């Protein structure tokens, strides 16, 4: 049963990723990415990482993708026809380099295949909110606070970068 669910989610994730890089419309790409992220969240659930599956749907599939869709809407990109039209050296080289990366990764995985164990039996307890929250707010207290500073800096930096007149000039 678990194998079939994995195959379902894996096929969905790979198909959505391929659809993302081949679709001509940017909005379609963003929606394919949402589908991909949600199927990866399903795979997290198969790995019994419940907290991260929920966080993946909330943060990635919700917040970040809404931000992407807002930017796509804001820029109102209409000249999309030249983005993926004709075959050129660029696609050949990109595809070739991608195949090299994939073969290296699969070679590294194939050297350890068969020796990796199953899902750890402790995982039912480890993936929950209690365990992760316990680790986050005791051992990792300082990194959590630094993350707060990082997010604040990112928001301030994004506002500063995206405002209309950076040098304080009045644009006519």
């Amino acid at each position, binding site marked *: 049963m678990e194998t079939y669910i*994995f195959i379902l989610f894996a096929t969905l994730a790979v198909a959505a990723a391929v659809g993302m890089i081949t679709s001509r419309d940017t909005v379609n790409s*963003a929606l394919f990415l949402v589908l991909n992220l949600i199927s990866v969240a399903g795979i997290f659930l198969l790995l019994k990482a419940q907290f991260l599956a929920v966080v993946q749907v909330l943060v990635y599939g919700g917040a970040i993708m809404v931000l992407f869709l807002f930017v796509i809407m804001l820029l109102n990109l209409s000249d999309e026809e030249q983005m993926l039209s004709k075959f050129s050296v660029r696609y050949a080289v990109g595809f070739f380099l*991608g195949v090299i990366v994939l073969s290296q990764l699969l070679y590294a995985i194939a050297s350890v295949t068969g020796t*990796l164990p199953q899902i750890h039996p402790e995982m039912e307890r480890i993936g929950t909110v209690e365990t*992760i929250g316990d680790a986050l707010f005791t051992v990792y207290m300082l990194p959590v606070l630094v993350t707060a500073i990082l997010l604040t800096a990112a928001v301030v930096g*994004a506002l500063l970068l995206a405002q209309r007149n950076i040098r304080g000039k009045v644009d006519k």
Partner: protein
Amino acid sequence: MEMDWYLGLSAVLFTIGVIGVLTRKNAIVIFMCAELMLNSVNLTLVSFSAQLGDVHGQILVFFALCVAAAEAAVGLAIIIAIYRNNLTVDVTKINLLRW
């Protein structure tokens, strides 16, 4: 279910992200491919964490999610600023720092 299937799926997703970054010209799609690669690395971390029964891999994924959120906000602001200056997000036409 063996762990190497999860690792293989993660490798395939990462490769699709690499191909997308190398072939697409739209800056927003390139950015989404970068998010795809980050996410596939998260899948690797979670699968190793599940295999070892260790909570630290999941905590690293949590911080990677925070950094990805910050990176998305700043990167999209940069794309908006580039669009204001050049009226395009085609990365082959943005050549101010290119010789």
